[in-house]
């Protein structure tokens, strides 16, 4: 009888731990998804702002290059997003000195600055969520028992967003 009670007790604890950890993983993945949605939105906003800036450069070929980088970033497939967004950062860095200093140019720059700050914030929130999720998923028991199911391992998003 005692053994039975012990077994039942342990089974209960194990079950509780597993269901609780699976719940945590659920919530963490939901947070990663939300944080990615936020980052995605800010990246799109930045690319749109970069296009506006491209229209106000005093060098037509630089404007064209920036326009292309922005379009490439907007249309990037998920696995190439990081690379192309980073290219956009670099293109922005190179073209900002050529910005026409009139009212429209200033407005485009202001929008780009806002968008870039938000990309920085959203990226930091996204990577924090990814870090928390990965930390739990890489623990021995969740990994061995595949508590995360078939969900993809979330990846960090690393770009240089200090351009502006």
């Amino acid at each position: 009888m005692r053994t039975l009670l012990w077994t039942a007790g342990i089974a209960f604890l194990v079950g509780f731990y597993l269901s609780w950890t699976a719940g945590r993983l659920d919530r963490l993945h939901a947070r990663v998804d939300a944080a990615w949605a936020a980052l995605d939105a800010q990246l799109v906003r930045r690319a749109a702002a970069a296009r506006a800036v491209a229209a106000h450069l005093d060098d037509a070929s630089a404007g064209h290059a920036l326009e292309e980088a922005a379009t490439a970033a907007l249309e990037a497939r998920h696995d190439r997003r990081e690379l192309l967004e980073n290219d956009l950062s670099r293109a922005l860095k190179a073209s900002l000195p050529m910005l026409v200093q009139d009212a429209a140019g200033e407005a485009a720059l202001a929008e780009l600055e806002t968008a870039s700050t938000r990309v920085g914030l959203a990226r930091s929130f996204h990577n924090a969520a990814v870090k928390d999720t990965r930390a739990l998923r890489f623990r021995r028991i969740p990994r061995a028992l595949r508590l995360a199911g078939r969900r993809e391992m979330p990846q960090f998003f690393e770009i240089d967003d200090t351009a502006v």
Partner: protein
Amino acid sequence: MRIGIACPYTWDVPGGVQAHVRDLADTLIALGHDVSVLSPVDDPDRDDLPAYVVPAGRAVPVPYNGSVARLVFGPLSLARTRRWLREGAFDVLHVHEPTVPSVSMLACFAASGPIVATFHTATARSRALQVFGTALQPALEKVIGRIAVSPAARRVVVEHLGGDAVLIPNGVDVARFDGAEPLPGRDDRPTVVFLGRIDEQRKGLAVLLEALPELVSLVPDVRLLVAGPGDADDVREAVPASLRDRVELLGLVSEQDKPRVFASGDVYCAPNTHGESFGIVLVEAMATGTPVVASDLEAFRRVLEDGRAGVLVPVRDPGALAAGLGALLQDPERRARLAEAGRRAVRTYDWSTVTRQVVEVYETVAVAAPVAVDATLEAALPVGDEDDDDAGRLVTTLRRWMADRARR
């Protein structure tokens, strides 16, 4: 934007977090946002309760982290929190100090969607985190955007919760301080001002009193103005009898009189020994235009821009403090220069600047669906609005829910 803010400490009792929430809410409303603050309130009928505050129940005093915190926790508060979340339909939920077992933690627990959390404490250990660390994690893990008010608070977040936090400093209403009139009855004797609890050792009044004899030898007609609660006799005893008439004790001064106290001094002195996470008093003195002499602590060094916007002196060193104060009192030109540098430096801390940064965080996280009541909680513990005051039924439902969860 519809913004829901959760404040963990009783609204009726003055405190740093409450003041922060109040000023943030006021500034957000002035910017045209819709704001609702959920907070424990002891007396919901008081006249000066702002219209945006939603009482979450009476707080219970609990010894916590070495002092007495007044907290709310329980089924009734949970029901009110849920109702607030449901009726508020917020675009973003902003919880303050979610590691304190109170309204903020409940809101984290009960909500899903874009949640932002601000961490205030620089204390390395939170009792709640130590005891319930793992159990609290699910609630804290929902937070998408983390804000820390100081590098020290940010370090606590990184060490205890993992992940990073964005640094957005505490705000000060600069306009309230700038151009304040000195208190009545002032003469032109050089005056050093101290503001803070006089019996709290880390505020460092003892160091300043020890420095007084030497300061008097440098600046013979110097006067010391001490504002803050505590036992005045202790202060008098710490000063040699011949110098007692130079120390004027104002006792506890009201928030309204604070700018005037700073304005009454030629120099503001912050001889703190340790444990400061931010140094908002320094910012207030600088906003008034009073040059600051402060201990060389990390937080103060940051506010004083490494000594460009104020004088830093070695910690717990009465000799150096006297020398620093004396030199500044004898040099009006340098005082004017530092006052100017201080006024410039505090612009970063003005609520308008700070709130803009906070709104940027809101707008960054609030692109997904708005805040809703957590689906798991909603399914497991269905309550109607009329249950709000029926704590008994809630306890039963909560027990049933826990039993049900345990079975699954």
